[in-house]
């Protein structure tokens, strides 16, 4: 299995072209503040948008293959394409090989120069990223998850039958890999069993014990399972992957009861803001103004147009905080490192008591956006503060990691 590497991500929408990243790079790499000598180059303009010339640390780098002196090599531990000054013959063929101007002549010294992700620096991380005042640059270290989790057994068979572009399959696979095989999984009626978690007529997509609880009794059934294994001295994780409707509406009583009793359960709610599996009906987690098939938009009657749901969403995770659970957190598949961090904490907390994880999950089918946009919609939901990522423990109460919001740019005419 291939390895994943850390990378520098650029969000053009957040960049204002200030050049602080270039200054930071030039300072670290050349000891000057000459932006032209920076390994990262921001190009473009306010009117046309800003763009980036930076080594992509390609998996199959052409700069390396064209080098006649073997001065460039791909380091398969770090992923960085390393340049060896002692071997370089200054032929510049590498600059012909690169599509993105990731390696270019540093006219100041007459040699090529390229980004090495500052791996050798004391920080071990790129200097440009923290220099950006707008979070347009992000140092993505999610590859850690890929490298670590990728080798663990996928506890779902290939080919779960989710809708195109749905992120819940991703969530299920990651969660199960992390929680591991000593787990009993409850998937109450909804999208998750709809994908085949429990299966149909004798076939199943799951390699661990799995069942349909009723929509109404997920937490109660898991409580019984966990208690009996505890009684006989066996360590298992009682895990629910439930939808928002079952958890916030008809299953809320059993959820609340189990949380109040501090049952040792890891309860994950996949919040796609409605009963999507049955055809996008309104749930109490549907937000204000949202179209659903039971809160449609129309001309209405008596002069009152129908404008979707007329109430705010129930804030289920906050309600769970008021049960004083061992752990409560909200997460998003657009922030996998954060999700993994919270999942780890939730797993640990579920050994002591009730752990609740609320994952915001855009629904390509129900929300009717293009199927390749799920992660982007999930990310935007967080960046715009439409949903908030936070966590609660009894010791810390509610905390949220600082995260800059998307910048709304006003354009002069």
């Amino acid at each position: 299995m291939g390895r994943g590497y850390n990378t520098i991500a650029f969000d053009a929408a957040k960049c204002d072209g200030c050049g602080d990243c270039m200054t930071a790079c030039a300072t670290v790499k050349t000891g000057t503040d000459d932006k032209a000598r920076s390994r990262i180059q921001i190009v473009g303009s306010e009117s046309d948008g800003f763009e980036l010339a930076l080594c992509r640390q390609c998996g199959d780098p052409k700069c390396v293959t064209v080098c006649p002196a073997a001065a460039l090599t791909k380091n398969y531990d770090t992923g960085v394409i390393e340049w060896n000054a002692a071997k370089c013959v200054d032929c510049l063929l590498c600059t012909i090989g690169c599509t993105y101007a990731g390696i270019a002549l540093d006219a100041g010294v007459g040699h090529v120069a390229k980004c090495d992700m500052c791996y050798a620096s004391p920080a071990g991380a790129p200097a440009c990223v923290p220099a950006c005042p707008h979070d347009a640059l992000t140092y993505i270290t999610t590859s850690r998850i890929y490298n670590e989790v990728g080798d663990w057994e996928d506890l779902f068979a290939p080919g779960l039958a989710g809708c195109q572009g749905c992120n819940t399959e991703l969530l299920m696979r990651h969660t199960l890999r992390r929680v591991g095989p000593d787990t009993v999984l409850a998937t109450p009626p909804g999208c998750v069993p709809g994908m085949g978690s429990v299966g149909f007529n004798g076939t199943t997509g799951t390699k661990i014990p799995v069942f349909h609880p009723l929509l109404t009794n997920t937490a109660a059934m898991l409580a019984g399972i966990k208690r009996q294994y505890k009684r006989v001295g066996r360590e298992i994780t009682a895990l629910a992957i439930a939808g928002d409707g079952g958890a916030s509406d008809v299953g809320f009583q059993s959820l609340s009861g189990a949380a109040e009793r501090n049952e040792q359960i890891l309860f994950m709610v996949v919040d796609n803001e409605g009963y999507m599996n049955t055809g996008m009906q309104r749930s109490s987690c549907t937000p204000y103004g949202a179209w659903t098939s039971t809160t449609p938009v129309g001309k209405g009657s008596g002069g009152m147009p129908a404008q979707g749901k007329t109430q705010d969403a129930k804030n289920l995770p906050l309600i769970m905080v008021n049960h004083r659970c061992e752990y409560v957190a909200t997460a998003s598949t657009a922030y996998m490192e954060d999700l993994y961090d919270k999942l780890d904490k939730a797993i640990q907390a579920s050994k002591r008591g009730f752990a609740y994880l609320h994952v915001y999950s855009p629904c390509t089918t129900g929300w009717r956006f293009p199927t390749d946009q799920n992660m982007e919609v999930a990310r935007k939901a967080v960046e715009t503060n439409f949903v908030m990522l936070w966590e609660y423990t009894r010791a810390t109460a509610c905390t949220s990691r600082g995260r800059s919001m998307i910048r709304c740019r006003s354009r002069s005419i």
Partner: protein
Amino acid sequence: MTTATLDAPSQARPAKQKVILCEGNEAAALGVALARPDMVAVYPITPQSSLVEHVAKLIADGRMDADIVDAEGEHSVLSVLQGGALAGARTYTATCGPGLAFMFEPYFRTSGMRLPIVMTIVTRDGITPQSVWGGHQDAMTVREVGWVQVYCETVQEVLDTTVMAFKIAEHHDVMLPVNVCLDGNYLSYGTSRVELPEQAEVDAFMGVKDVNWHVALDPLRPMAVDPLTGGSGGKGPSSFVRYRKGQCRGMQNSLRVIEEVHQEWAQRFGRNFAPLVEEYRLDGADYAIMTLGSMTGAAKDAIDEARDAGKRVGLIKLKTFSPFPVEALLKSLRKVRALGVVDRSVGFRWNCGPMYQETMGALYRLARESGSILPSMSFIGGLAGADITVGHFHRVIEATEKLLTGSAPTEPVWLNEKD
């Protein structure tokens, strides 16, 4: 009030049986303790409350080693137990009336998943007109959902049947949940002399616990429990039919198992309860009345008095109501020429008592066999805590006797209508 009558001991009994005085709810709790469940889930409701209080106290006092879950409602009570059972626990709870109605969703599912959960129904009338008093309406309402349902006559029978219920439920040929029905007010609070079996004797009777060999949520033997089944294509119809037919087979098997377990109980503990159908002074009877539950005590007194007065009347009592013990009942029905059936609840669809309605099915079998129809009628009494007295049963006997010579009324007789 109906007097609980103890059966005369028919066999040499084991020496060590402590005699105590207790109410039916406590007897049920003691029976539960003797059966050593792993998990008990409780939610209070009149007239069941003192039962779960007794269970909680037994656990708190260290006289019972079970995990007790104070759930937030009956729906979760049964759901917690389903989880426990799927993880291998022997499980128990009790409820009635509105609580039973609230737990209907998981209740229906328990039999479908073949989980051998034992649940006492301390029967209660209602739900509306509002009533907190006894009556069989709750248990009768759920009679078609695949649980084995047995009704007790006495406080001693409550204790003994509660223990036996676990063995019946967990029998590999049955694997179905069992309701032990005891009459709210009359048995729940009725105090009586009770013989308490020794724990070691009961342990020997119960044998090795093995409740989830057939369906489990266990990482050591992973399986998908209750996948979607049915539909009109592929293996759908056949797999669904296979499940349902298995349930029906389990129900039918339970009739034999109930008899076997009662026999073994009698051998070990010296108390002989009719497992399916009890006959009382039926030999030489021209006609019979039919009863269920605690009302039978008063009915037997009335039969004794009627016999003394020269009336050729006997009594048939059902203990097992679900599955309906039609073969056993037919043996008794063949002995008489008229039948009056007394119900403690109503069957809304047929304008008669539910037991009467079920018995009509047996009477059809009898008619096919004999070529003639046994005249019968329905009596409804004891609703919402009302007493069915010896006097009421004399009215039942007189009306049933008239069936021998006249035509059968189509309307039921409401015994407490003018009380």
